[in-house]
C-alpha cells in the first residue's frame, strides 16, 4: 500500500511543485523545500517496502503490460532515487541563496524560471528511474533533456546559450536514435516492457540494429568519450547549481537506461566483446578527460572535464559486471562509484559557484589571490577531490576498491592499470586547484562575502561524498534486491 503512495508522490510531488512554483514565482524556494520533504518521506516508505518485500511493481491505472504503464522499484532504482533526492535537496538549499545575488540584476528573473524547471527535472528523473519499459524511458529521458537544456540556457549569456543550443540538438538527435531503436524492438518483440523483453528477446538482425541505435543515442546523452563534445561547454557555462544537477544526475539518467538495456532487457545479447568495447571507451574517457582537465583554464571547465573522465569509470562496470565470478562486486562497485561521483561533483560545482561568487571569475591561475579567504569552500573542494581521486575512506575509494578487486578476481588487469592511472591524473588536476588555495599573494583582493548557507551546503555534500564510503556496505546490500542477474 505505502509503495503505491510512494510511487505516486515521488513522481507527482516534484511535478506538482513545479506547477506551483511556476504559478507562484515568489514561493519557489518554499515549494521546492516542501517537494524535497515529500519525496524524502516517499522514498523512505519505498525503501522500507523494497528492503522488506523485494521488487515493488506499480501498475498505473491497473493496466498491466504490454498495454499498461508499469512503474517498478528495485534496489538499483531506489539507490538512484536516493542520490537524486540528496543532490536535489542540496541544490534546493543552495539555490535558495544563489539566485539572490544583489550584484546581478537578472538574477531575480532567473530565479523565477529556475524553480519550475528544476522541479520539473527532478520529477523527470524520478519518473525515469521508476519506469519499467523502454518507451517510458524515452519519454522521461526527453523531458529530462528539455529541462536540462532550459536550465543551461538560464545563465543567459552568449556562451551559455550557444552551448545550450548545441546540447539541445545533441539530446534531441540522441533521443531519436533511441526512439528508432524502440520502434524496431517493438516491431520485433511486440512489447516494450523490460522484464518481458528479457524473456522474448531473440538475437536477430532487427534487434542488433535496434540495440546499436539505442546504445548510440544513449552514449551521446551519457557523454561517453568520444561523444562528450557537448558536455564541457554546457556544464561549464550553466549556473553553478545547474551544473551540479547536470553532472551529478542528468548524465547518469542515460547511463541508467544503458544498464537496464544491456543487463536486463537484452542481457542475452551482452557478449564479452561488447562489454570490452564499453570498457575500452570508458578507459579512453578516463584518460582523455583527465588529461584535458589538467590543462583547462577555468575551474568549472576543469570540473566538467573531470566529469567526462569519471563517467568512464562507470562504463568499466560493463566488462567487469558481465563476468560470472565477482560480477556483483563490480556491479555494486560501479553504482557506489556513481553515487560517490554524484555527491563529489555536486560539492565541486557548488564550491566552484562559491569561488565564482567570491572572486567574480574562476580563472584558476588567478585564484591564488583569493581562494584562501573562503576556507570552508576550499575545504569542501578538497574533500570532494579526495573522493574523486579515490583516496580512502571516501566513497570514491569504496567504489574503486570493489571495481579493482573485481578486475583482479577476473584477471582483467588492464582495467586495474587504467583505474590507477586515472586516480593519479585526478590527483594531479585536483591539486592544481588546491595548490592555489595555499598560494599566498601579497595583494590579495578582498573577496565578495559568500552566504554561509552556500558554503555549508557545499561542505555537507563533500562530507557526504567522503562519509558515504564508511557505510558503503548498506547500498551494496540494497543493490542485491532485484539485481538483474540472468
Amino acid at each position, binding site marked *: 500500500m505505502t509503495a503505491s503512495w510512494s510511487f505516486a508522490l515521488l513522481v507527482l510531488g516534484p511535478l506538482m511543485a513545479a506547477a506551483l512554483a511556476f504559478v507562484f514565482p515568489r514561493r519557489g524556494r518554499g515549494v521546492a523545500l516542501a517537494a524535497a520533504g515529500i519525496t524524502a518521506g516517499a522514498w523512505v516508505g519505498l525503501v522500507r517496502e523494497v528492503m522488506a518485500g523485494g521488487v515493488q511493481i506499480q501498475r498505473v491505472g491497473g493496466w498491466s503490460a*504490454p*498495454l499498461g504503464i508499469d512503474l517498478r522499484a528495485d534496489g538499483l532504482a531506489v539507490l538512484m532515487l536516493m542520490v537524486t533526492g540528496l543532490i536535489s535537496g542540496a541544490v534546493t538549499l543552495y539555490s535558495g541563496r544563489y539566485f539572490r545575488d544583489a550584484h546581478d540584476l537578472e538574477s531575480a528573473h532567473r530565479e523565477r524560471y529556475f524553480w519550475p524547471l528544476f522541479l520539473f527535472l527532478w520529477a523527470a528523473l524520478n519518473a525515469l528511474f521508476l519506469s519499467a519499459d523502454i*518507451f517510458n524511458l524515452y*519519454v522521461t529521458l*526527453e523531458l529530462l533533456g*528539455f529541462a536540462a*537544456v*532550459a536550465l543551461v*540556457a538560464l545563465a543567459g*549569456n*552568449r*556562451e*551559455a*546559450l*550557444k*552551448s*545550450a*543550443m*548545441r546540447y*539541445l*540538438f545533441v539530446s*534531441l*538527435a540522441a*533521443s*531519436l536514435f533511441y*526512439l*528508432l531503436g*524502440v*520502434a*524496431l524492438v*517493438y*516491431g520485433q518483440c*511486440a512489447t516494450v516492457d523490460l522484464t518481458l523483453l528479457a524473456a522474448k528477446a531473440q538475437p536477430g538482425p532487427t534487434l542488433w540494429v535496434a540495440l546499436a541505435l539505442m546504445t548510440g543515442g544513449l552514449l551521446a546523452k551519457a557523454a561517453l568519450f568520444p561523444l562528450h563534445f557537448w558536455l*564541457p*561547454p*554546457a556544464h*561549464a*557555462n550553466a549556473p553553478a547549481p545547474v551544473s551540479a544537477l547536470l553532472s551529478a544526475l542528468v548524465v547518469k539518467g542515460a547511463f541508467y537506461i544503458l544498464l537496464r538495456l544491456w543487463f536486463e532487457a537484452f542481457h542475452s545479447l551482452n557478449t564479452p566483446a561488447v562489454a570490452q568495447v564499453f570498457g575500452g571507451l570508458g578507459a579512453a574517457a578516463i584518460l582523455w578527460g583527465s588529461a584535458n582537465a589538467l*590543462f*583547462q*583554464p*577555468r575551474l568549472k*571547465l576543469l570540473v566538467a572535464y573531470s566529469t567526462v573522465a569519471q563517467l568512464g569509470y562507470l562504463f568499466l562496470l560493463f566488462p567487469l559486471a558481465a563476468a560470472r565470478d565477482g560480477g556483483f562486486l563490480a556491479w555494486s562497485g560501479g553504482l557506489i562509484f556513481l553515487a560517490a561521483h554524484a555527491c563529489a561533483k555536486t560539492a565541486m560545482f557548488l564550491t566552484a559557484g562559491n569561488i565564482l561568487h567570491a572572486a567574480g571569475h574562476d*580563472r*584558476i*591561475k*588567478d*585564484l591564488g589571490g583569493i581562494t584562501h579567504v573562503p576556507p570552508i569552500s576550499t575545504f569542501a573542494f578538497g574533500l570532494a577531490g579526495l573522493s574523486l581521486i579515490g583516496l580512502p575512506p571516501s566513497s570514491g575509494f569504496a567504489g574503486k576498491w570493489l571495481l579493482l578487486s573485481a578486475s583482479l578476481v577476473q584477471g582483467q588487469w588492464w582495467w586495474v592499470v587504467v583505474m590507477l592511472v586515472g586516480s593519479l591524473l585526478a590527483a594531479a588536476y585536483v591539486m592544481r586547484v588546491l595548490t*592555489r588555495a595555499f598560494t599566498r599573494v601579497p595583494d590579495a583582493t578582498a573577496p565578495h562575502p559568500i552566504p554561509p548557507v552556500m558554503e555549508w551546503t557545499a561542505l555537507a555534500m563533500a562530507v557526504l561524498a567522503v562519509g558515504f564510503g564508511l557505510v558503503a556496505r548498506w547500498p551494496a546490500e540494497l543493490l542485491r534486491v532485484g539485481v538483474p542477474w540472468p
Partner: protein
Amino acid sequence: MPDTDHRLYLVAGAALFAIGFYSLVVQTHLLRRIMALNVMGSGVFLVFLTLADRTTGSVADPVPHAMVLTGIVVAVCATGLALALADRVQAATNKVDVDDGPDGSQDATDAKEARRG
C-alpha cells in the same frame, strides 16, 4: 499486404532519418538544424507506423500509434523549445548560424595563458 511495401516504407524511414542526421551534422544554420531534427523524427515515425502493420490482421496494432502520437507531441515541444532558444541565441550573437569554433569553452583562446596557472 506483401512485405515489399514494408521494406519500402522501412527504407524510406531510414533514409529520412539518415538525411536528417546528415544535415544536422553539416548544416550550421540553426533553423536548418531544427528542420533536420524534424526530418529525422518523421523518419522514425514512419518506421513506427510501418511496424504497426506487422500483424497481418484486419486491424493494425494500436500501441505504436499511441507511441507515435506521444512522439509527435514531444517533437512539437522540442521544436518549440529549439525555436525559442535559437531566437535567444540570435539575439545574443546576432548570428543565425553558429560556427563550431570556440563554443563556450573558449579552448583556443584561453588555453594558452591558462596553462601558466
